[in-house]
């Protein structure tokens, strides 16, 4: 099996061979919900940080008892999988105040799923020094809680090592994305998404090894020359590479994104120029923004523009999971600013599951035609 095939397989399921192997060694796995939660601290405690996703969920009968149709279908799907036992391998769960749906998911999860360890991080919605200090203190509390719950000591050295390991992941992933900057990209958007999704479901040392192998393998490929328009995808959470595949099946290539299971996960390294907890707090707060960061909403446009220029984008698809008000509201400025920059934008509403693929294909098809005409 090639590295790409291995990473692709990991992205397709909840549990995977890496999870099984880790558990067989008697080591803990802790699930986390959002890209603002520093994996480094879990890693430094000898814990495998696993980003909770909902891939494979096809309906939500159990979760619907707790969550209504006005609640995000990604969150409902995560709860469904947890209630049906798919997350039985987790020794703990860490959540944060990402959005109102995730906040309540944590309340329900704690009561009904009863994962042994749980922690909630209060992540600021601003990035000024006071917010950085607040988050540093929150991370210190998180660290102390982990040490107590798992009977480990998280040393400065172990955190420094974890930051280095994760920065290597970031560096390697940027190299993967660079392969997509070319006129003839070496990866499809679906493949690239599989690679990033796998990053959050594999112990990082193993993942970095796989990525190095992948870069060697893919470097020998011929570029994709007949690919149609170059698109960027952004918006609500996408943890299912099939979604990118549906878009590309219409005759285009997704060459970059602004997704939290995508470039926003790894784009900036953690700088280690001072107190390490403060470095983590600062880096995570100042990463490319999600609209939860209330005051910095304009940064979304800046980041989008940067990506559009760097990856030579022909059009942007912004997808919004129904009732995701944070991304929904962001449309107001994104539409205006991209219009000013003369960048075509397609806004698509969807549910988490890919069952609405037909409608999606129609919308993308029409968009591609419009770009072609333009």
């Amino acid at each position, binding site marked *: 099996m090639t590295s790409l095939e291995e990473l692709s397989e990991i992205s397709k399921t909840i549990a995977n061979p890496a999870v099984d192997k880790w558990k067989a060694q008697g080591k803990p796995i802790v699930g986390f919900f959002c890209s603002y939660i520093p994996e480094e601290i879990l890693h430094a405690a000898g814990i495998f940080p696993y980003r909770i996703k909902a891939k494979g969920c096809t309906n939500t009968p159990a979760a619907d008892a707790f969550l*209504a149709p006005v*609640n995000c279908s990604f969150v409902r799907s995560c709860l469904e999988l947890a209630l049906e036992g798919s997350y039985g391998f987790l020794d703990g769960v860490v959540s944060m*105040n990402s959005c109102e*749906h995730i906040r*309540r998911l944590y309340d329900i999860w704690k009561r009904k799923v009863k994962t042994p360890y749980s922690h909630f991080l209060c992540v600021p919605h601003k990035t000024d020094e006071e917010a950085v200090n*607040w988050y540093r203190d929150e991370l210190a509390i998180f660290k102390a809680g982990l040490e107590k719950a798992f009977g480990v000591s998280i040393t400065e050295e172990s955190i420094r090592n974890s930051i280095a390991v994760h920065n290597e992941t970031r560096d390697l992933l940027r190299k993967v994305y660079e392969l997509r900057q070319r006129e003839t990209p070496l990866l499809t958007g679906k493949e690239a998404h599989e690679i990033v999704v796998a990053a959050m479901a594999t112990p990082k040392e193993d993942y970095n090894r796989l990525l190095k192998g992948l870069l060697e393998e893919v470097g020998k490929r011929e570029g994709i020359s007949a690919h149609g328009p170059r698109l960027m995808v952004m918006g609500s959470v996408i943890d299912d590479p099939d979604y990118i595949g549906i878009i590309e099946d219409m005759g285009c290539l997704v060459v970059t994104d602004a997704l939290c299971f995508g470039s926003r996960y790894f784009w900036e390294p953690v700088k280690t120029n001072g107190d390490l907890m403060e470095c983590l707090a600062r880096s995570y707060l100042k990463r490319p923004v999600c609209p939860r960061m209330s*005051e910095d909403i304009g940064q979304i446009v800046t980041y989008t523009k940067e990506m559009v220029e760097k990856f030579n984008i022909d059009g942007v698809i912004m997808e*919004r999971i129904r009732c995701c008000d944070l991304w929904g509201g962001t449309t*107001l*400025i994104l539409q205006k600013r991209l219009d000013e920059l003369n960048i075509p934008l397609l806004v698509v509403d969807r549910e988490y599951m890919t069952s609405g693929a037909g409608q999606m294909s129609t919308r993308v098809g029409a968009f591609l035609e419009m770009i072609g005409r333009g």
Partner: protein
Amino acid sequence: MTQKNIREIENVHNSMQGLLKHVGSKYPERKWMYEPAAKYFELLYEDLVQNKPVAWYFFLLTPELFRAMDIAPFSGEYAGSVISSFPEGIIKYMELAEQHVPDSLCAINKYTLGAALSGDFPYPDMLIHIAAHPCDSASIVYPVLAEYLGVPQFCLDTPYLDDEKSHRYFASQFSKLISFLEEQTNQKLDFDRLRQVVEYSNQAQEYVLKANELRKEVPCPISSRSSATAAGAILGLAGTPFLVDWYKKQYEMALERVQRNEGALPEEKLRVAMIWSSTFFDLGVLEWMEREYGAVVVMDLLNLWINEPIEDTSSLSKIVHGLASKTLKAPMGRHGRGPVDTLLEEVVGICRDYKADVAIFAGHVGCKYGWASAKLLKDAIKEEVGIPTLFFDFDAYDPRVASSETIKAKIEQFFDTYL
């Protein structure tokens, strides 16, 4: 500063004055319940005529600072909830917003957005918002508007918990807000004036707490409509002498009734706890419940103000801490921002302490965190209080989702089954 477009505010102000006159002549005993909304628009209109700088702000931010700094405070949420009860409602503005954002955003936030985009309302000189207090819809509308319009904004960042450390963090945000307001208005905060405003606010708050205690009496001495009105009044008018007089009047009327062993209704048959939203587009639904079923709302979640008056007003830092705590502890905000435990405990408390016979979860479709709490609420009420709860979905500001008649039919069926 250029003159603002005040036409629409003038229209609403005139409509409210007309309504007061009409109610005063036909139902003089009910006139006082319409006074807070009329006063809000009267004061706003006067501020605008004087060409004061306009702050659009999210309504859970207690407005004392604006009142003390000669800033015209426009809250789309408060204004919209009043206007939604007018025949033309707020649909025009919601639809304008829906040209840009999904219809799933809360109606009242869509109103704010649409009102800003329409140009019918005074253009904001600044936008003040609160992150995640309580919902995403409110969190996103203000910052995107600020970016869209190119208007200065200030975000008050909220912590998740309600402990002392969190209050200190939030108080610090409040201090920065003062600096922001000073910068935007080019004037220093007058401490003596702020203290006076806070004294008014404190006096009103004392009556709020005392009136809420009286609601526990059987029969309940305060009517359902005045309860719903009171919830909004504090948001729009805190810091004004009017609010002190208004709450004092409400309290004294209630006290007299208690002393006479009378309730707000001629015969109280059913005590209702409203554990989520209310029918703001038609508060007549509450009066229908009273008439048809002798059912009085003994407490509603939005009226559950729990903060004590600011004890020490001798220094700016103490006042700032007090105002910050008041904002953090605002109903809705504290129920949505943090863990669900606060909500569960308080709803159970309402049902038990106010001796409710039934609970109604009027589930506003824009309240995603509310609906995500519904099952937990249902279980908690059943287990700890043992009273039945009616759940239904509707839009508190938009009768197209569920009309007054549809809502009444649901309540009717529930009451008939229960009674």
